[in-house]
């Protein structure tokens, strides 16, 4: 199959890559761009480990072809921090121990980031629904919910890490 040109901005960096058109967005992010923070843990778009921000929306990057992201802006977990300064949700995850094995964490952080952007003061139920598509086998979710609540309550508004 002939390769096609994909123009995509990931974490603020513009890329032009020639790819097989059947490649999924997650495959390009991980294999072509080497951003292995984004994970995969199923092949049925049901675990959320591959969640990225696509033009600001949380999207499972295994559920779309990379070519569908032509011209788009993508944020992965590697794009959440500014240098050594972690984003509020990353700091809150640390404070609440909202990760254990860490494999679902990148996708979980992205889903939480998308939620807080859209709804800075979510209820507990809204938080649960926002991460409903992300499976975590370690934490039982409650620490993740507390972490999102922590950011919503403004605990991380001032200063950096």
């Amino acid at each position: 199959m002939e390769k096609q040109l994909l123009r995509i901005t990931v974490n603020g960096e513009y890329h032009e890559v020639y790819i097989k058109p059947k490649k999924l967005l997650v495959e390009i992010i991980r294999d072509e761009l080497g951003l292995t923070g984004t994970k995969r843990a199923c092949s049925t778009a049901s675990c959320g480990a591959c969640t990225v921000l696509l033009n600001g929306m949380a999207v499972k990057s295994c559920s779309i072809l990379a070519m569908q992201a032509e011209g788009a802006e993508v944020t992965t977990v590697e794009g959440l921090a500014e240098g050594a300064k972690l984003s509020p949700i990353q700091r809150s995850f640390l404070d609440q121990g909202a990760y254990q094995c860490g494999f679902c964490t990148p996708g979980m952080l992205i889903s939480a980031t998308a939620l807080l952007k859209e709804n800075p003061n979510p209820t507990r139920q809204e938080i649960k629904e926002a991460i409903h598509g992300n499976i975590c086998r370690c934490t039982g979710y409650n620490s993740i919910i507390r972490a999102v609540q922590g950011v919503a309550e403004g605990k991380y508004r001032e200063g950096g890490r």
Partner: protein
Amino acid sequence: MKKFTVINTPVHNIDGVAKVTGRAIYTFDVKLPGMLYGKILRSPYPHARIKNIDASRAEKHAGVKGIVTGKDTLGIKQGIWRRFKELCDEEILARDKVRYIGEPVAAVAAVDEDTAEEALDLIEVEYELLPAVFEPLEAIKEGAPQLHENAERNINVTRHIEWGDVDQGFKDADYIREDWFKCSSQHHVCMETHCAVASYSPEGKLTVWTSTQSHYYIQLLLAWVLGLRENDVRVISRYTGGGFGSKFELDSAQFCSSLLSMKLCKPVKIVLSREEEFMATKRRTPMFYYLRTGVKKDGTFVAKEARAFTEGGAYTSMGATALYLTGFFQAFPYVWPSYRYDGYRVYTNTEPSSAMRGFGAPQATFCAETQIELIAKELGLDPIEIRRKNSMYPGYEVPGQAWIQSCGLIQCLDKIEKWVKSRGKLPPNHGIGLAAYGFMSGGIFNWFDTPYAFSAAIVKINVDGKVDLYVGSQDMGQGSNTTLSMICAEELGVRLDDIRLHMGDTDICPVDLGAWGSRETLMQGNAVKMAAAEAKRQLLEFATAKLSPNIVYDLDIKDRWIHLIARPERGLSYYDVVKEAIRGRDGQPIIARGHYTPHRKGMISPAYSFGVQAVEIAVEPETGKITLKNCVTAHDCGQVINPLGLKGQLEGAMAMAAGYGFTEDLPMDEGKILNPNLVDYKVLRATEMPETEVYEVETYEPEGPFGAKEAGEGLTNPTAGALSNAVFHAVGVSIKNLPITPEKVLEALKEKKKKKEG
């Protein structure tokens, strides 16, 4: 001065920043120059003889670099019970016979995964189908199809535990109850599926990156089946994306990638798909349980007889251990004057069953706690009171099996009783159920036959005061890296950020048997504490010479301050002493070793955790649907090391155990798993998780580091039983067949109604 300066304070996991920034490199992320990608061809039949494998077409497929089958192996039947040859029964790449759907028969290495996958379709395997058997109660019958030559009636292992006079006990009982239970299977569902990158070099060295709970076990097992010297195999496992009992046996990704790499002298990566993970790794052992229990009118336990028939699947794996532990924990956490257990592990043509978080104890606890609730109801006794009356206590000896040193079960029951009362009268169709449990802090058994200590650690103090801590244990998310660093910092008298931990590499780490059976806090923790204490002793020798105190004074280090214990203001900075001590030792850093092997601690474990869990639910009588409302746990894990990590472990265990109780199952048709994906296999989602509350009950465990013992695994034991008891109190039916699905509840309600009307 505070008792502790490091432990019992909540801290971020030391690998937390790597994990929240996506910088943690898992095996899944490893990419080496020139790396090939492997895929595994698996049997579509539950039981068949392999007549011939023709890979010639696949070999010619463009992009294919190499293929291996059973003929390329040494044909060694391996297993983790190395001391018992007959229990080493799995070849991984089958040569003669396949015994379950998903068993590997060939593996391909190619330039990419797609090409390898295409090549699988070109391999022609000629099978002769054999009759198969899927249920243990069928497989044990005379004349059933036999899986292994040396296992008559498919009996793989039997276990017997007995103490007291059981027959007399039943004669003395005022009330006897018999029940059958069925405990379902469950899959670990690690987020990182089994995977490995193997790289063989022309010097004859094999390096394997893999997602594992025990790099030491994998090193030895690989060396054995590949005919290599143990220390020519290096296993690296820095981050493991979940384990839960599924990742300390040799798996097909590790074995096939190694074989292919040895054949091609190129790195080969194999990542199991989620479907392969479900169908062809290992899973929780399904069990049929018979319980006969005798009690006095006042609820005093007098006799118990238990029989378990476990669905072993095709191979032994860790199932033999689960068979013993389920029998042992069937009697937990109570005092039984007489007890008899007979366990039978039966081979079936299904995916092998093995270890999973709780290791046989969740099954035992579900049956035992469900039955106790029924007994309490029939005798008109309070469910908490009957448990309190029969509770284990500090100093109790489980006859011939174990010694209980610390035990906070009564305090746990008190806390839960208070919470239950605080809920007051519940709305209709709501119910609270509870279950008590205990668990081990590392197993004493050594069927793996290691000649090394069970755990070992090395501490090295550098001139800037930074401490290198080398451990053999594996952090798979449970937080042992942090726990062990905290134990080291506390013992040595420094801060957590003075510790630099090294783990997950057989080339540089001392041996530890791995992260299973809740070993790490107690066993690896004791080894770390011993190494840190020895390093401290070396430093204090030097400090004593410097401070020159009266000989009756003792020195200690706390928070980087070396001082006289009796006069804490008199002392020296840790940093200054380290600098001078190293200079005084002709420039040698301070190095100390520690190790731990349990001796004379009974048959099972050196220490036991205890707890009680209460679950509040609501049942929709029209649909049978269960909604979790609350989950409250009182827990005795001895001295808490990292409260933040502990809370996460407890909540996570509860979520997994609730899944076991009411949503997760592996239904099969003729040995084929019907739901091998995350759409149809229902793990708990955030929306289903109830609020959780945890009460810590403080005890001191003399055998544990700073008094600590198991936390996090045992909490998978009580939930299914608590759920079934909650359903019983909510709508008056007792479900003895896991998982407790809406269909089963509805069926039982109909049955109940029919009985009432009839």
